[in-house]
């Protein structure tokens, strides 16, 4: 008998604490933006959401490599949960980005921002992950094909960003670059704490869903061995690994 939720409580506590600190920093410490005022504070929600989501997609691809190499279905489940969570974060990032664009540029959508555009394309690609899974009935093949898709789609993420970035003649000032960007120190600290909080939230939710799925599988297995095959309802066709 394995316990799946090990470490989950610590992770939850760390996440709650970090997010509270991040919110406190966002509202009481970080200075108001000179141009955009209060609405700029959505930046501390939107950018971490988007970054964590993209990392989650790539993470899902890396886990899928594990499945293809080892043939262990546990890796497929990890990859599925990673992409599933990243999709939810991605939709959140897109909506907050749209609100920010409306507030600061006056449009809900701005094609001239390469990051927003390439993010949409990546999201469109990964949105086909679930329909693809759902459309394959054999669970073993479903896992294999989904892994192949996840690997290719993860490799697509950086290439897509290069292509879209170059496609824009007019590029908005980069707020955050790898070299540190031009963010003032107090804003950068707030941003980094928010990013950490969002990453921890992702990790917590990922672990939580994994725990729930593993526990459900184990309950089914126990019921079947104790009460016989008739005691568990047959699994319906599903996009989720089981």
């Amino acid at each position, binding site marked *: 008998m394995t316990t799946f939720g090990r470490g989950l409580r610590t992770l939850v506590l760390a996440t709650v604490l970090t997010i509270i600190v991040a919110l406190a920093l966002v509202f009481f410490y970080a200075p108001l933006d000179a141009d955009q005022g209060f609405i700029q504070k959505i930046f501390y929600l939107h950018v971490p959401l988007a970054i964590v989501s993209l990392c989650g997609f790539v993470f899902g691809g890396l886990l899928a490599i594990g499945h*293809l190499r080892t043939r262990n279905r546990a890796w497929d489940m990890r990859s599925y949960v990673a992409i599933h969570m990243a999709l939810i974060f991605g939709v959140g990032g897109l909506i907050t980005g749209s609100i920010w664009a409306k507030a600061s540029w006056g449009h809900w959508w701005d094609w001239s921002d390469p990051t927003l555009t390439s993010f949409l394309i990546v999201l469109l690609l990964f949105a086909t992950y679930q329909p693809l899974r759902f459309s*394959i009935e054999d669970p073993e093949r479903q896992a294999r094909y989904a892994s*192949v898709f996840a690997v290719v789609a993860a*490799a697509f993420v950086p290439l897509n960003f290069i292509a879209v970035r170059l496609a824009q003649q007019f590029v908005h000032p980069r707020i955050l670059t790898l070299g540190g960007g031009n963010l003032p120190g107090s804003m950068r600290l707030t941003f980094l704490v928010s990013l950490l909080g969002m990453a921890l939230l992702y990790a917590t939710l990922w672990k939580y869903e994994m725990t729930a799925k593993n526990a459900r599988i184990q309950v089914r297995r126990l019921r079947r061995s104790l009460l016989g095959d008739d005691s568990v309802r047959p699994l319906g066709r599903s996009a989720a690994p089981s």
Partner: protein
Amino acid sequence: MSTVLAVLRKDLRLELRTFETLPAMALFSLSTFVIFHFGFNQAAIAGQLAAGVLTVTLLFAALLGAGRLFVAEREQGGFDAFLLAPVDRNALLVAKAVAMFIFLAVLEVIAVPAFGLLLLGPPLGPRLPGLIAVLALADLGLAVIGTFVSAIAIQTRARDLIAPIIGLPLLIPALIGTARAAGPLLAAHGSGSPPTKWIAILALYDVVFALIAYAVFDYLLED
């Protein structure tokens, strides 16, 4: 290599005898040009607009062709026969991608002159060498991704839906590269050579996805 040639020869012979895929792709392209003519309500287009129309038409025609790529294998048990044969499985990917590339090249021999005749404002002749270079690179990407997506979709229940919804987002970088490379070419006073930057991006895209598809194709076949 001989496996690639054998499968390729089989595919080309099948197409020559049935004339199923290519005429459909060509007719689709012509209809699309007519549709764009009425959609824009313009007799002649040039520049980036023309490049976009040409690229989008070829992209959709390619997806149409890709959907048919593995149908014979699935219906006639060709997959099982191929798996039973002691050959490298990637040979199937290479053969299908080459077949797809040939289909696209033949399609463009028909569709590009038709485009020049029906929609394009500036004369096609001087722009042809540059356009051929751009389209060759675009075809490479379309062939690789088309084959890959088709190989995934053929094993799913909703295969007519899965191939385009996966293929379209995956092909967006290639579409950007092709349209932007062809845009200056098709402009009214454009230069004869496509911009190097976009040629480089198209080439990068082709190489990266050809390698990735080659690496993962194995896993799509085993059963």
